[in-house]
């Protein structure tokens, strides 16, 4: 067991936080993915989690060099959030978590919901699967993050993410050392589930900061069971169990997510709660073609060989006749 894992076990045992399942440490040791449960019904929208995320992750925020390299072609836009670091009502490279507001009437009751939004840490993340450069990655413990020393800021992860979560900052990263005017455009940023804190055996900042214990972290199987229990108890609804093939973020809400999706502010940096099919499902099906292909090639090869041998035989017969 690595030192960090052992420390995680010890420190989790010591924290005794209600928001950390006791089995979390064991799950990490076994290499099981961690998931979080967000009980939307409990959130009071105080924003402590947003502030905690900023404080804990400040050292990872971009520090862009200016002026930015001139971009070719001209239409390539720079994404500069460095002068607007205090924007906290959407996702930005300097704000990886924000609170979404949903005033909904459901079954005759009015709800004023506040919902913490960030990367959902998909179980089979298209951002990491399709990053052509290996910069977006998924760790053993389920954390999906972007390596800021490798990312070129091409924003593909954002395009393929069903919620378009990662946000770009121009003027930082590896592209500056390559061909800054012609390829790349900075680095993409998003919630990394405080991977460094987890490595040190600490709990993500937004979880510990919450006065209402909105979030619970633990092994996915248990978090899923908890989500179902909670949904049953409260007549609630679950988001994240099947969306995009399953995410390691399970939201439970007293109101159906279609209703929430209708009333929330959506757009750049503001993800929805729409239904999401598994983005990688067609690839899973195409795997069959890839498995079948060599067998088809072998069959065609054998057929070719048999024909060639038969032709040789015929030729032999002809010679014999002559």
């Amino acid at each position, binding site marked *: 067991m690595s030192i960090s894992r052992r420390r995680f076990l010890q420190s989790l045992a010591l924290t005794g936080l209600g928001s950390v399942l006791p089995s979390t440490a064991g799950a990490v040791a076994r290499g099981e993915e961690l998931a979080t449960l967000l009980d939307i019904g409990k959130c009071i929208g105080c924003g402590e989690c947003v502030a905690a995320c900023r404080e804990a992750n400040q050292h990872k925020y971009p520090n862009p060099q200016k002026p930015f390299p001139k971009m070719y072609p001209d239409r390539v836009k720079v994404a500069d959030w460095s002068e607007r670091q205090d924007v906290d009502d959407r996702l930005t490279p300097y704000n990886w978590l924000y609170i979404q507001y949903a005033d909904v009437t459901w079954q005759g009751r009015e709800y004023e919901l506040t919902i913490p939004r960030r990367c959902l840490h998909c179980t089979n993340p298209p951002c990491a699967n399709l990053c052509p450069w290996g910069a977006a990655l*998924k760790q053993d413990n389920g954390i999906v993050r972007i390596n800021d020393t490798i990312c070129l800021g091409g924003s593909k992860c954002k395009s393929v993410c069903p919620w378009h979560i990662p946000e770009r900052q121009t003027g930082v990263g590896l592209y500056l050392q390559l061909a800054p005017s012609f390829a790349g455009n900075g680095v993409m940023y998003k919630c990394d589930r405080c991977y460094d804190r987890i490595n040190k055996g600490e709990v993500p900042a937004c979880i510990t900061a919450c006065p209402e214990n909105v979030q619970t972290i633990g092994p996915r199987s248990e978090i899923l069971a908890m989500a179902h229990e909670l949904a049953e108890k409260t007549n609630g609804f679950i988001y994240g169990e099947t969306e995009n093939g399953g995410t390691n973020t399970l939201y439970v809400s007293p109101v159906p997510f279609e209703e929430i999706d209708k009333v929330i502010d959506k757009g750049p940096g503001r993800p929805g709660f729409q239904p999401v099919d598994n983005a990688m499902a067609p690839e899973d099906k195409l795997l069959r073609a890839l498995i079948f292909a060599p067998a088809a090639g072998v069959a065609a090869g054998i057929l070719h060989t048999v024909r060639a041998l038969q032709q040789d035989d015929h030729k032999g017969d002809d010679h014999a006749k002559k």
Partner: protein
Amino acid sequence: MPRSDRPARMVRHMYHLVVFGLAFTGFAQMPIFKRYYLADVPGFAWTADYYLNHRIHYLLAALLLAFFTYVIIVYATVWRSRWQITRCGLFSLGLWSGIVVTGIMRVMKNQPGMHFSPTTTMWVDWLHLGLVLVLGMVSGIMALGRRKILIPRS
């Protein structure tokens, strides 16, 4: 290809088409076709669709795998007595093996429930792209020098 009869020529053309398709859809995995206007050309908007190109890449890779296994079997059983692989041919074969292996690894990694370490994944990505670039250069040099992959056994 050893014989210059029609089916063999057709197979060769198909092979070139599949390889071109693979290179194209492979490069389409990088965010360049939109940036450099290709996707703006009427009828070419699909070149910026990552998912579509990714799926075509899978399909073409399946065709290529079928082609390679076919050629390996036929070479081993029929062609080998009359044709021999050149040194350039062996080098290309080595590069192709690397491309196929890294490609298969990437496909495996993309399966739900499959997990490679981030460093392994990064190396697989870089090797796949790097080997393709080297193979492209080697093939270009071979074409210029009229070097063949197979030559008749003397």
